[in-house]
């Protein structure tokens, strides 16, 4: 007896997954499966690529062509997969550290090229796999095992960074807003070009405990209360926006030629 979506898209033998109780990663993984289901993609033509981290274990559970690479390099591997076989729908799953610390360069370059890869960042604001060091998205002032006196770094806005680098679709959601998130992932996959969905996730074990954020449910409730959609925010007075974080679709640019399409046109041109 299983959730049919899970049965259809997951590798049942590998479940349950290794993530901690209350870890938000599973929520995103399910939304991804649902989005793929809505799009009616052929499982054989989907390739999910990840780096290293808790979140990067996701592909092991998903019943597609799956590739678990080295830390930070998922997008570089994925670029090879996509360019070599553009008919594959390539989806990258990456942690905030994987995508924006060691992997930051590959992120901005994949975005710049506008290559048709969908990147989903599982942003738990911490390095989970290695036990709670601060990441490029850990809020200023928060604690991490390598920030025992409080983090003095300033966090990246990953979705906006991807947009600035050239991503033609960039959006953010949270594990609370799972329905919206699922729609965004669906839009992102359908999008022709580089698309980024940053999902704010929860790590009750390392980030939560260290920063006294309460239970997993508390942490998710915080997401509910503190994220507002950009569209809504536009209409809100400043005081109502204070202390709030933005989510929603930040960028959606159509008509920019996708990288592998541009390459194919070189091949076509040379045939003449």
């Amino acid at each position, binding site marked *: *007896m*299983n*959730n*049919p979506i*899970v049965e259809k898209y*997951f590798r049942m033998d590998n*479940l*349950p*997954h290794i*993530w*901690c*109780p*209350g*870890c*938000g*990663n*599973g*929520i995103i993984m*399910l*939304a991804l499966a649902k989005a793929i289901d809505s799009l009616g993609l052929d499982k054989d033509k989907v390739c999910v690529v990840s780096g290293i981290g808790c979140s990067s274990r996701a592909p092991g559970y998903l019943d597609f062509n799956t590739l678990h690479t080295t830390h930070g390099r998922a997008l570089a591997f994925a670029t090879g997969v996509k360019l070599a076989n553009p008919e594959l729908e390539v989806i990258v799953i990456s942690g905030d550290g994987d995508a924006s610390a060691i992997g930051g360069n590959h992120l901005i370059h994949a975005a710049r090229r506008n290559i048709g890869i969908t990147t989903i960042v599982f942003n738990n604001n911490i390095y989970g796999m290695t036990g709670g060091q601060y990441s490029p998205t850990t809020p200023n002032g928060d604690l991490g095992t390598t920030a025992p006196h409080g983090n003095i770094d300033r966090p990246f806005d990953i979705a906006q960074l991807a947009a600035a680098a050239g991503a033609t679709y960039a959006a953010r959601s949270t*594990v*609370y807003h*799972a*329905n919206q998130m*699922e729609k965004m992932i669906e839009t992102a996959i359908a999008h022709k070009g580089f698309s980024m969905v940053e999902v704010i996730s929860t790590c*009750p074990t390392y980030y939560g405990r260290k920063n006294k954020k309460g*239970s*997993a*449910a508390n942490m*998710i*409730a915080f997401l509910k209360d503190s994220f507002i959609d950009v569209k809504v925010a536009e209409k809100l007075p400043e005081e109502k926006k204070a202390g709030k974080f933005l989510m929603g679709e930040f960028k959606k640019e159509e008509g920019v030629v996708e990288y592998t399409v541009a390459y194919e046109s070189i091949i076509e041109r040379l045939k003449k």
Partner: protein
Amino acid sequence: MGARDNQEIKIKKEWCKGCGICVTFCPKQVLGYDDEGKVAMLDSENCIKCGQCEMRCPDFAIFLGGKE
């Protein structure tokens, strides 16, 4: 209505890690815990089958499934 009528909440206890997310965000507050700290349906009558528990369960341990 329609489809939902034939559905009910199913729980796969082996996979539940007792995180409490579904319990917290169930709009009808019909969920609770069993002895082992795993999720339990306390009041299936009042479940509106909104699917929020399924949507947010990180462990795919609770979901709306077809009535058997």
